[in-house]
């Protein structure tokens, strides 16, 4: 999936957002590309940029290790979206994200100059977002935490973290963790997700308690899990589990609903994800009713000749994946909606000519603005055939930089 990064921010609510924004913007590539190290001692680390490991096509992903955190990369996330239905058959969408960001005082401070792991000292900043939406309702919450990657106790006992096996990613009492405890078994087979915000039975109560069961294999995007994000070679490590069956309970505005449906978990990490001239992106994850999945994104800027950079994955029901290059994919906004003082495209035409796919993808509800520290639009979409209009599937759309 895409980095949750925005280049030009809306007015800042407080210092905290300002600062975080700064951090994330820096990651997004607003800053100049740090110069390659040329000292003799570092000659072998050709992929090292300012001390961070740079994502590249030659790294082979390995599991379960890569489910956990990668503190040598600047930024990373665990990103779940789900298209569910409640007991009345009413559609309901949710999102849960844990972001990790290496917290170093300047872009030139390499990981080897991290602070001593004294009490409270931190080299990692964590941010978690939760959203639940149903009809016109849209509830959002976010939280922050710090940790130190060199403090052993914090890897399992800190305020936030992510460990590979048995898998557990958490911030406070917001926890996504594996139910599989036998050694050797696939830790990603069955997960539980618990996150609540607001106390007691109040109107503001928001959250969910879900069970996630994997009904297909992990999917590696791009070239064996290296997903290029710009024509100049910038990119990230990127894999997904798009085959979750989800069951559980969701609370929105103090009301609890029993839900079931499909979910999509993205894992992505990188040190420099985007080129400096990329302003934002539009990202789709679609569950088609025939069992196939489509991931497609468009980075606005950074393509050949300064155009858009498009990429995607065509996923068969058995998990077989075909990367889609820029020219194999068309994505065109058709209509915008006014949301949070902006014009956001909520109706799109998506074409994958190689798969005979020509769809209209539309958000039934435009009010899905994530009014978080780093604000963006994220919501459920319905895909229909461009010509016939029959429903083809559901999914999620994320748009940043508007």
């Amino acid at each position, binding site marked *: 999936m895409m980095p949750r990064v925005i280049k030009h921010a809306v007015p800042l609510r*407080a210092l*905290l957002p300002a600062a975080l924004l700064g951090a994330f913007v820096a990651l997004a590539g607003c800053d100049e590309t740090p110069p390659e190290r040329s000292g003799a001692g570092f000659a072998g680390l050709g992929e090292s940029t300012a001390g961070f490991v740079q994502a590249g096509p030659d790294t082979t992903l390995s599991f379960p290790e890569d489910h956990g955190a990668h503190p040598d990369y600047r930024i990373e996330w665990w990103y779940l979206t789900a298209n569910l239905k409640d007991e009345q058959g009413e559609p309901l969408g949710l999102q849960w994200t844990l972001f990790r960001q290496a917290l170093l*005082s300047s872009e030139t401070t390499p990981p080897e100059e991290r602070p001593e792991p004294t009490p409270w000292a*931190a080299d990692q900043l964590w941010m978690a977002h939760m959203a639940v939406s149903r009809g016109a309702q849209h509830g959002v919450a976010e939280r922050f935490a710090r940790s130190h990657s060199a403090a052993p106790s914090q890897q399992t006992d800190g305020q936030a973290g992510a460990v590979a096996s048995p898998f557990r990613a958490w911030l406070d009492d917001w926890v996504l963790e594996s139910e599989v405890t036998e050694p050797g078994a696939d830790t990603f087979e069955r997960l539980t997700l618990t996150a609540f915000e607001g106390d007691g039975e109040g109107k503001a109560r928001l959250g969910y308690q879900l069970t996630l069961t994997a009904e297909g294999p992990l999917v590696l995007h791009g070239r064996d899990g290296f997903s290029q994000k710009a024509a100049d070679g910038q990119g990230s490590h990127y894999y997904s589990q798009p085959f979750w069956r989800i069951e559980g309970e969701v609370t929105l505005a103090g009301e609890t609903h029993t839900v079931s449906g499909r979910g999509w978990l993205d894992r992505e990490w990188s040190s420099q994800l985007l080129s400096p001239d990329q302003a934002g992106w539009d990202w789709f994850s679609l569950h088609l009713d025939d069992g196939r999945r489509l991931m497609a994104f468009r980075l606005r800027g950074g393509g050949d000749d300064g155009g858009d950079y498009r990429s995607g994955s065509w996923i068969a029901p058995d998990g077989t994946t075909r990367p889609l290059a820029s020219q194999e994919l068309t994505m065109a906004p058709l209509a915008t909606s006014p949301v949070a003082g902006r014009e956001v495209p909520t109706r799109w035409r998506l074409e994958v000519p190689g798969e005979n796919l020509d769809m209209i993808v539309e958000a039934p509800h435009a009010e899905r603005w994530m009014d978080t520290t780093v604000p963006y639009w994220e919501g459920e979409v319905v895909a229909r055939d461009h010509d016939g209009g029959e429903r083809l599937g559901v999914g999620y759309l994320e748009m940043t930089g508007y």
Partner: protein
Amino acid sequence: MATQLVTLLTTLLSHYRRHPGQLAMLLLGLWVASALWSGVQAINASAKESYARAEALFTTGLDRLERLDGKPLTRDDFLTLRRQGVPVSPLLEGELTASDGTRLTLIGIDPLTLPGDSAFATAGSTQELTGFLAPPWQTRLAPDTLPALGLDAEAARGASPRLAAGRLPPLTLAPALPPQTLVMDIAAAAALLDAGERISRLVTAPGALAEAPPGLALTRATTLVSPGQLTQSFHLNLTALALLALIVGLFIVQAALGLALEQRLAMLRTLRAIGVSGRALVAGLALELVLLGSIGALAGIAGGVWLARALLPDVAATLGSLYGAGVGVELRLPWHYWVGGLAVTLGGLLLAGAGVLWRAARLSVLDLGRAQAWRSGYQRQLGRMSLAGAAVAALGLALWAWLSRQPAGEGLAAGFVLMAALLLVGALWLPPLLAAALAGLGRLARRRPLAQWALADLELQLPRLSLALMALLIALSASLGVNSMVGGFRLTFLDWLDQRLVADLYLDPPAERFAAVHTWLGERPEVAELMVTRHGESTLLAVDAAGASRPLARPVSLFGLTPGERLTPTWPLLETDAGREEAWRALGEGGAFINEQLAVAEGIAPGDRLTLATPGGGEALAVAAIYPDYGNPRGEVLMAATELGRRFSAPPDSIGIVLAPGADGEALGAALGSEFALGRDALRDQGEVKRIATGIFERTFTITRALNALTLAVAALALLASLLAQARERRRRLAPMWALGVPRGRLLGVQLAQLGGAALAVGLVAVPLGIAITWGLVAVINVAAFGWRLPLHLFPGEIALTLGTAVAVALAAAALPALRLWRTPPRALLAEETG
């Protein structure tokens, strides 16, 4: 029309070209009056700004959590609660000492969990959070904290000053922070304070938690009293003093203006005669007033700012030690301060000049205005003054009657009005009194022509001098009143300290080692008795008196002490239900004492029952006694330390150590230090505690005394102004005396005797008036402002000093005109008479 007015104004002002002294006096009066007033207002405005900053800080306005057993919270407590979904944020607070000795409050925060907009948002700049959270971190501080670090704003940015505790992270200025406060990431603060995993407390958004998590005590932000509330009375007192100075200063102005009009009467008549309308004349004079007023007010504000700058460190120290309220030692003045200062001075000037304008408006073109005619007019004026004085006295009596029926502690403003009425009655009745005395003395001195002349002459001077003498009376009686109050307070306070501080040593052990230290001390042979104290906070929910229950919601502090052999005989009590011994017995059995402040504020008497909020609900306690608690701005409930610990889960605070006879306190301190590695500040001996307390006390009244002295100086100036103003005319009257054969030296002596006598009379009136003021201060103002009543102490020394000051001031003021007269050749006296 405009040019006409300009011509008129120029003509009017030309008078001052010929009498620059008068202009100087007028401006001086305005300057001094408005300087004192605006100085105090500057202090108040600065302090208010500091309070506002303190209240905007995250440490206030948030609910707090502390451990019930008094042990410090740690990072693990924070993590455990967070992982249970309790939205707490850690706060680490400590003190650092700057190289110049200033104590700086260091606050370490975790901006990632700190609740919402309360805090960081308002205190911060748009600097990146990364810089705050990651090495080398940042120190955020207000610009007025920089002097303590020996830096100016230029050098501050990014500087990393070294303190005893270590190097501070690079400085970033955040003007919204309170003074003497450093804010940084909790990681940097923990390193500087060597706090390890320990934190001071957990905070949470107000009302976020319905109840305290197990093992923790929840203190709601609403039960914490803000510094602004606490210090209100203090600032009101300052304002009253400043108002006094302003009024006295305006007396000078009034005198100078009256004189300038008097001397310009001929000119004004001429102007009227050549066709200037009465209205234009008044307009011209008013314009002159505004012009002079603006100059005086601007100079006054500049002087006030200077004065405030000089006094502010003392005020800040006082407020810090009395109320724990941090006040910046650098002035921070809002725009309305400047406008307000100008308005008050100009308003005062117009008030003082109203009489002049009124007289100018009624000016008769043909009136020849001689001294005798003036005199009969003055007789009427004296009658009016007596009547006005009687009216004010009646008003004062009515106010006093009303006040005496109010519950104690009410009516601070009314108390000040009563004081003002007292002073006004004294001032209004002074001239009739003096005139009557002069007339009586004149009859007595019928056989001594020179004395008789002197008395008659003084009577003739009285109209001119009366205003200055009234100012002197006000200044003298206020000074006597305030000094007697301070002196009485000092005696009471020192006595009270002696009674209360009975232990030889006072130890402040760290909470986590309290038990170990206590046990260790208990086994030492040098120790005769250990007196543990505890501290807590609670809310007074209800008072039951005479079968009726009164619901309240008043935050109170809880204080627990160990009623031992050494303490109970001397600990001061004001009122008990059934005698001292019975009261102490009741305390040991779970009763409570309350301080005078609380008793006065809520009308609680011994025998009443209190209901106090506890973590588990409410606790009922019977009030056995009321004790004096000078210097404490808050209501306090006292109980046995063991009871306070058991029923309110209050943590232990300090240990008072009574040494065995002949034991060496220093050796014990050294042994204690080597056993527990306690900080140098942890152990204090009784003498040191007393020194600190007395130091705070003295500092508290520094500003009172300074303002008093300045007011007195203003009054002296008023007198000098009046004397200088009439000096020329006086010479004309003295010439015939000289011509009749009275030597110059004798004439001078007579003059000095006239004034000295008048001043002595003023001083004699000032003594009873001053005593009345003292009574008002200790019985009305102090009770209403601070909640404690003081015994009325009278100091013969102060009274003698008042009389001496009166005469000295008068003689000093008379010296200059007398010297001038001495230097004038007799020929000139005659020449003036003929000319």
